């Protein structure tokens, strides 16, 4: 007999949980079923590197307390048997890996990203190559690192991990594994580390700081081949023809939308699933939220997935409200990337357009000051992007200036030379920003009428 549910949510992370919460705001009665191939309660996926560093624990990484699911009557089926293997949108049915079928009213695709495996000879066959996206990946890499350190100590040599890919995931993995093995070497095909969120100058500053903390990054160099002995990767043959011995490898080259289920069912896909402003896919009664959705970039108009936690949360809220038929359903039009990441004591905040095209329509100012590197990108009198390396204070004020398209000439010019302040905004805008929901019976002095 098939399982039946009013709402089926495929994926048990930010987007799925946010959607479930939004559904419950409108529909307290309908049955909600969350399915995922991962056997765990929802956890902060980006926390896996912090877990390995000891900044969080297996008791603290869960996003919601267990009673939350009961209180909100969110049914969960978690584990490999509950992976949806086929979606039949016309019949409103989903087939599970374990053989069961789910009959649903409305379905949300929120299955996130899957790691992209680069076509490097030997990489796919080695047993000691780990992606770094899930809790299981992280725990496996941790175990490999411990074994590598123990073996290297016996053999009297340094233990070494090679990370392929110096994106956010690769560098966070490198930071985490630094505490376990003697040497971490990060390869990056692009000419700089963090190619998506830094420019060349900022990347050079960060690379030096990482080197001082024990992470060697080799931009412009990747592995042309992985040497495999008895099923295990033992070295990388670099594009420089040098041989780099290693104990294990983390492959963090990138991710792609985990949208095969929808595409197989006939959904329209660009670089991610194509959705309307309510995040409905082209399939009947199927919505999508999170990493697998194609988003319109608010700054350059390009269309691509934005695989970021806040984006997934915001999309989940919109999709959930729409699925439940909320009276004032919000819409999702566009977004821009905001990234916050820390490596050891180094902080990096970036947003929007970092590497503008050199077509004359953008201007940029940069400043290096000791350990900090700051860049602001402008277009048509608006701030459209920033890098704040080691100058995080009040960075969200800049994010708000981008999001709300506040003309730069209205702001105190000093706002870009040090931590931004609310006093840098013009009086009327400042009042409006800081006094939302201000009591109607008080004036701006805080006094009530007639007192």
């Amino acid at each position, binding site marked *: 007999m098939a399982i039946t549910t009013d709402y089926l949510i495929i994926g048990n992370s930010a987007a799925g949980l946010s959607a479930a919460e939004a559904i419950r705001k409108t529909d307290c009665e309908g049955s909600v079923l969350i399915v995922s191939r991962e056997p765990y309660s929802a956890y*902060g*996926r*980006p*926390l896996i590197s*912090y877990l390995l560093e*000891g*900044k*969080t624990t297996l008791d*603290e*990484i*869960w*996003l*919601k307390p267990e009673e939350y699911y009961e209180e909100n009557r969110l049914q969960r089926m978690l584990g490999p048997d509950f992976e949806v293997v086929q979606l039949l949108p016309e019949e409103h049915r989903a087939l599970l890996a374990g053989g069961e079928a789910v009959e649903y009213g409305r379905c949300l695709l929120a299955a996130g990203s899957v790691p992209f495996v680069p076509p490097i000879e030997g990489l796919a066959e080695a047993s000691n190559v780990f992606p770094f996206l899930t809790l299981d990946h992280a725990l496996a890499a941790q175990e490999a690192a411990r074994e590598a350190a123990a073996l290297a100590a016996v053999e009297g040599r340094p233990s070494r991990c090679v990370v392929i890919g110096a994106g956010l995931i690769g560098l966070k993995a490198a930071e985490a594994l630094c505490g376990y093995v003697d040497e971490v070497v990060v390869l990056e095909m692009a000419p700089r580390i963090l190619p998506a969120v830094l420019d060349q100058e900022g990347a050079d500053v960060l690379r030096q700081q990482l080197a001082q903390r024990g992470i060697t990054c080799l931009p412009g160099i990747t592995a042309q081949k992985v040497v495999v002995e008895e099923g295990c990767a033992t070295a990388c043959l670099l594009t420089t023809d040098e041989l780099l011995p290693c104990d294990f490898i983390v492959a963090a080259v990138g991710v792609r939308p985990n949208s095969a289920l929808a595409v197989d069912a006939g959904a329209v896909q660009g670089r991610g699933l194509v959705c309307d402003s309510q995040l409905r896919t082209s399939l009947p009664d199927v919505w999508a939220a999170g990493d697998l959705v194609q988003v319109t970039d608010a700054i350059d108009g390009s269309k691509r997935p934005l695989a970021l*936690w*806040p984006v997934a*949360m*915001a999309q989940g*809220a919109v999709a959930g409200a729409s699925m439940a038929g909320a009276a004032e359903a919000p819409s999702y039009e566009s977004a821009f990337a*905001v*990234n*916050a*990441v*820390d490596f050891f004591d180094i*902080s990096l*905040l970036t*947003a929007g357009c970092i590497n503008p095209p050199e077509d004359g329509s953008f201007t940029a100012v940069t400043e290096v000051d000791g350990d900090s590197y700051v860049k602001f990108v402008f277009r048509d009198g608006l701030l459209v992007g920033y890098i704040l390396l080691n100058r*995080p*204070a*009040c*960075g*969200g*004020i800049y*994010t*708000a200036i981008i*999001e709300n398209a506040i003309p730069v000439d209205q702001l105190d010019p000093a706002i870009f030379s040090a*931590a*931004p*302040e*609310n*006093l840098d905004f013009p009086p009327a805008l400042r009042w409006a*920003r*800081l*006094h*939302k*929901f*201000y*009591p*109607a019976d*008080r004036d*701006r*002095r*805080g006094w009530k009428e007639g007192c």
Partner: protein
Amino acid sequence: MKRIYALEEWCIDCKRCEVACKVFHSKSKDPVKAFLYEQPKPRNRVRVEGNRTLSIAINCRHCPTAKCVEGCISGAMTRNPETGVVTSNPEKCVGCRTCVSMCPFGAVTIEEGPTHPIAFKCDLCGDELGVPGSPSCVAACPNRALIYVESEGN
């Protein structure tokens, strides 16, 4: 919900709100110990922007759709659905600064915590997370430049 509003017309940049906040959030509740001796250092969650012809105290707006909550990767930052109070759970916070990059007002800071840097923000001086108390900054303000009043929104 009741919110704190800052009125720049009356603010004299005296920073007594910062002192009161730091002392309330200290273990000793003693200004000298809080400022000079306690480790980890107690942190003020209200911050006076001043040193110019104007000054104003900035603290969390407890936004209905709080961007810090939306961005939090660890589930530490939450908004209590009943009270509307936004707080960060120090046990869960990993200090990634996503909240810092998302807060439109600069009302969250990452400072040294018991084991690693974590987020600090206004908790309305409640005894427990998500429950408002009596804000110390408002009580300490000599000029009623900070008021704690029922707002028009939740």
